[in-house]
């Protein structure tokens, strides 16, 4: 992997949110607490690459995305865009970089203003960033952007309102709004999870095409591992605010080292009635990240946890080429997982 292509590097990113005390708690002198939404995350993204961040709800994946976009400033850590730390910038200095990192949100029914036309939605960023001098110029750019996202002919879409568009078309409008600013990075937060299965692929393939053509980087946040395997080049798994494993996407889904990644993969149903049935390899549900578990955060649910797991935080280490994992017993876990020796924790699945 040529490290010279890094367009984004995130180092030691943390984001804590204060928890508001209830009235009675504050009367009793309760201590202020924080949610450790993101608690020390490092990763980088290369130009022309799709980097996936996957995890359950509450793992902090969306907070990473929002923090990297500086929609909310990090508590600590660096967000290096081509070497410049965005976390240190403010106001007009930061605004200069905003077009470079663009976002496509999860829900196209919420993320586009229903009272604006497609033209207004897509061109707004151009005016905000002083990238055009006239309406004519803006319209021309909007038309070009609509063509790029295959809303053709653009004349037919440009003065429509969102309610006249399908979900897939709205998500294309959201992509056009991002692309029109010539970004270097697109941050996509579950961009197809609200869409029907039959139209997911067209939005994803468009994202892949745009990435190829423009050589931009994409950060793809998802909870769907099967989809992530097909879309992402590299994939990181988050749990309670930290990355616990990352590798090439298809390697991660075929050779998961971390017991949590294994539990996720064993729980994904396969679209084949003759195929392997789902297994529950982790106890319970993701705990609160107000006071995350000590040591390895996964030890409370881990099928192979030992004493040391509750005491020592396992470091994220490169254990084979470009495959990083944070587990004291990853070797043992992987052996048991591949031999099918991990026992499901729930009531026995029917035979």
């Amino acid at each position, binding site marked *: 992997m040529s490290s010279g292509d890094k367009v984004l590097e995130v180092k030691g990113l943390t984001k804590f949110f204060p928890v508001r005390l209830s009235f009675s708690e504050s009367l009793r002198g309760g201590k202020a607490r924080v949610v450790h939404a993101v608690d020390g995350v490092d990763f980088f993204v290369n130009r022309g690459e799709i980097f996936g961040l996957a995890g359950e709800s509450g793992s902090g994946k969306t907070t990473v995305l929002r923090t990297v976009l500086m929609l909310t400033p990090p508590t600590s850590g660096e967000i290096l865009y081509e070497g410049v730390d965005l976390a240190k910038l403010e106001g007009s200095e930061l605004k200069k970089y905003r077009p470079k990192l663009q976002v496509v949100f999860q829900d196209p029914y919420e993320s586009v203003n229903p009272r604006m036309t497609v033209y207004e939605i897509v061109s707004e960023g151009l005016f905000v960033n002083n990238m055009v001098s006239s309406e004519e110029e803006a319209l021309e750019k909007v038309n070009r952007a609509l063509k790029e996202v295959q809303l053709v002919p653009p004349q037919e879409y440009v003065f429509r309102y969102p309610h006249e568009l399908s979900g897939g078309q709205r998500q294309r409008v959201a992509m056009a709004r991002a692309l029109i600013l010539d970004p270097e990075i697109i941050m996509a937060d579950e961009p197809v999870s609200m869409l029907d299965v039959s139209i997911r*692929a067209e939005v994803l393939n468009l994202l892949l095409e745009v990435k190829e053509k423009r050589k931009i980087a994409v950060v793809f946040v998802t909870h769907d591992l099967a989809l992530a395997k097909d879309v992402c080049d590299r994939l990181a798994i988050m749990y309670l605010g930290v990355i616990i494993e990352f590798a090439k996407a*298809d390697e991660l889904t075929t050779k998961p080292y971390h017991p949590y990644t294994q539990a996720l993969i064993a729980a994904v*149903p396969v*679209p084949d009635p003759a195929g392997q049935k789902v297994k529950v390899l982790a106890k319970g549900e*993701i705990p609160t990240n107000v006071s995350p578990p000590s040591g390895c955060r996964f030890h409370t649910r881990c099928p192979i946890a030992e004493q040391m797991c509750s005491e020592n935080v396992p470091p994220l280490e490169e254990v084979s080429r470009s495959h990083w994992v944070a587990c004291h017993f990853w070797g043992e876990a992987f052996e048991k997982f591949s031999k099918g020796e991990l026992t499901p924790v729930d009531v026995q699945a*029917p035979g």
Partner: protein
Amino acid sequence: MTKLAVLEVAGLKMYYGVESGVVRAVDGISFTLKEGQVLGIVGESGCGKSSLALAIMKLLPSNGKIIEGTIAIAGVELTQLNDAQIRRKIRWKKIAMVPQGAMNSLNPVFRVGDQISEAIQIHTGISKKMALSQAKTLLELVGVDSSRARYYPHEFSGGMKQRAIIAMSLALTPSVLIADEPTTALDVIVQAGIINLLLNLRKEYKMSIILISHDLALVAQMSDVVAIMYAGKFVERGASLEVYSNPLHPYTLGLVGAFADIRAARERLISIPGSPPDLLDPPTGCRFNPRCPNASDICREKEPELEVAFPGHWVACHFWQEIREQRSKSV
């Protein structure tokens, strides 16, 4: 293996009257559900799959009306019964439903156990104390510790809430359970737990389940028989093993190609062009024809009927034989 049919639906049509016309949400659906069988109904949003469930439960909104067809459960014809009879004899007792998003419908100011026991009390008239003890048994049955009966919904996780709702639906030991998207909004490990729970209930109590979902993989995991629904109609149905390994309808094929499979090698997903039709004004002929790669004149003119392609495998397509040949050549 001839098992008893517990539910028989024939030629069911349910339309909604709206200002601008008639929405043909369920348009001629027939199937038989046998004892202990899981039927998966797969379809996209707006295909009428939830409306079908509401029609079977006779829980229709005021503008929804069953136009034609029959729904027989254990020999009783539901379309002939009035609301009071359905409430007294059928709903909860013979057939229960876990509606989509039901886990968010628990009342936040009552304890979970009390909410379950209230349902039992109302329908059986037993004492409050007995109802609560039954509620606890039900919670244990679905894998929630019975001490949690005293908890309020906000003290439950998403998965536990869904289990509580399933427990409630089992209160009067129905023979058929309709589960509409029972795992949407749940994380994948929690989802796996719910899948295994439902399958266990099926096995231990010979309960029949209708599973409604947009998720091909979820349906593959759970169903014995599967029906693919498009624009108010079943376009293909049969034994799951058969339909998944030998899909004949272009829509089924399209769904399979659009669906990511975690076991498969990295692949580019293929979309189905266009979007599902408006059921106010569905296309003439085959309703899938505007999106179909195989469509020709006959598809635009004549509506294909569900026909037997292989024993136990039904498909509604004029060209299923050609599709099958094409596929066997390309393999």
